């Protein structure tokens, strides 16, 4: 089966700074892929390249059988991608519910009561229902992170891209988040998840890739990757011979 998302030698450089260096990998349909790597490794830049917020210097990106390398972010979203932003980007002057409604109506293609009901369900799932009428600009950082997840879910994507949504949660909240993402995965949604909270990631993903200096340095089964000496050294800063 052809890959649902394929990155083919994707590179991006800002002058002398390379944020993506010949990145190539495939994500089959229905997979949950975890992405780890040190701060500044280029994980979020990779998300920006996939979603169209950045355009690559070279290389190709294929999504659902289409070459989307030159497509706008909006077009890729309508083709079925949705993401959360690591640095939350709320519609500050609108309420939490309205933020969800924008995702459901513009990206999710829903209308009227159906959209409203769907948003209520997602807000319940992400524990923001009691803040539904709060202006998004008035949320705490944690609330804004939840709103990022909410919007991504309301978009009803085929490919869900999550960028560090578990940081700062209590154990109980993290458990609930894991369950939410598992449920979405079980529905057949393809997921790419960047996360520093490794235990949350390992509870969900089928496969891991490791990024450093814009390069893919390892790829494989989660446990094996986490235990490999090169990951221990580069990602966790532990000497290889220790």
């Amino acid at each position: 089966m052809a890959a649902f998302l394929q990155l083919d030698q994707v590179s991006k450089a800002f002058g002398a700074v390379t944020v993506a260096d010949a990145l190539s990998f495939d994500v089959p349909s229905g997979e949950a892929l975890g992405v780890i790597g040190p701060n500044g490794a280029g994980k979020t830049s990779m998300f920006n390249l996939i979603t169209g917020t950045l355009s690559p210097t070279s290389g190709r990106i294929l999504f659902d059988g289409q070459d989307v390398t030159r497509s706008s972010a909006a077009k890729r979203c309508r083709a079925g991608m949705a993401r959360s932003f690591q640095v939350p980007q709320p519609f500050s002057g609108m309420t939490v519910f309205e933020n969800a409604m924008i995702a459901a109506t513009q990206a999710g293609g829903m209308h009227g009561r159906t959209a409203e009901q769907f948003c209520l369900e997602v807000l319940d799932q992400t524990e923001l229902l009691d803040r539904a009428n709060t202006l998004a600009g008035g949320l705490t950082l944690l609330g804004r992170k939840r709103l990022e997840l909410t919007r991504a879910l309301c978009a009803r994507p085929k490919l869900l891209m999550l960028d560090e949504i578990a940081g700062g949660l209590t154990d109980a909240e993290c458990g609930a988040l894991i369950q939410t993402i598992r449920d979405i995965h079980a529905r057949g949604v393809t997921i790419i998840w960047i996360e520093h909270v490794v235990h949350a990631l390992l509870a969900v993903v089928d496969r891991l890739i490791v990024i450093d200096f814009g390069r893919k340095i390892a790829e494989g089964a989660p446990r094996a990757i986490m235990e490999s000496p090169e990951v221990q050294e580069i990602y966790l800063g532990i000497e290889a011979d220790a």
Partner: protein
Amino acid sequence: MNLSDFHVTRTSPAARIAALLGALILIVLIAAPWWAGRADMRLMGELFLYLALASLWNLMAGYAGLVSVGQQAYVGFGGYMLFALTIFGGLHPLGAIALAGALGALIAVPVALLIFRLRGAYFAIGTWVIAEVFRLSFAQVSALGGGSGSSLPVGIVKSLAASRSGREHLSYWLALGSAVLVIAAVYLFLRSRNGLALTAIRDNELAAGSLGIDIWRTKFIVYVVTAALTAMIGALIFLQKLRISPDAAFSVNDWTAFVIFIVVIGGIGTIEGPIIGTLIFFLLRETLADLGTIYLIVLGTVAIVIMLKAPTGLWGLIRSRFDIELFPLRFRVKPSPQSTKG
């Protein structure tokens, strides 16, 4: 938590009262020819036209983020089209107003393709330059009086209504109708799916694009529709003035600076803001206009004080204190009645 305990509503008691009061005020205003004097009606007519211009500029700048200082391009264009179409095209003035709108949209398309390449302050300057190009171009047309302008022939004026009072009533109702039409159109648009997209763009373009909203297309549509309606208002303005010249038609002071003042002090990015702003602007103008230059200094001072003390304008101040909206755009999630009992 049971989701059937919640429902979503877009109205509120305040909005229902506002709608009722609005309807009553509208009836009183429609009946103005029977209770208001000639001078008052002329003043109110001018007020309604400014209200329409301000509501349109607010849609463009406050929601689509297109801060144009060149809307006088379309006011003047509409005015000149009224003169050209009635004098040379032999059209009835009302037909000419409608056609001026269509032509305004047409001319806005290439203008938008040009100036949409500019961002922020450069966009603002670009719109002003375009307006100057319009002014200089119309000053070259000798058939329309060139730089000194021309007057609307008596025959065309009389085709509107035979008697003077008939014409005055008609132009008052046209001004009132255009303000009501513009506000209703803005309100209905903002309530629609596309209006939600536009509001999202206002708040965060990065997130809006990532949620499938075509930012360029949305802004383009807003710009072109705003241009068309502004041209129609321009035609109406010069139907009342009966005389047009390039300097009056493309005046940045009259058609843009005052409009920005109205929107900013009233509350940019809200439907209510331009209404409050227009009332305050006319109140200041009518009480201070005799003072000459001091009047403009007072206007500037008021604008500076409000921008510093209430950056969201007077309506922003009221809204944040009382959490009300007269034109209900918000979605509100409320507990359903049956669940509050149990």
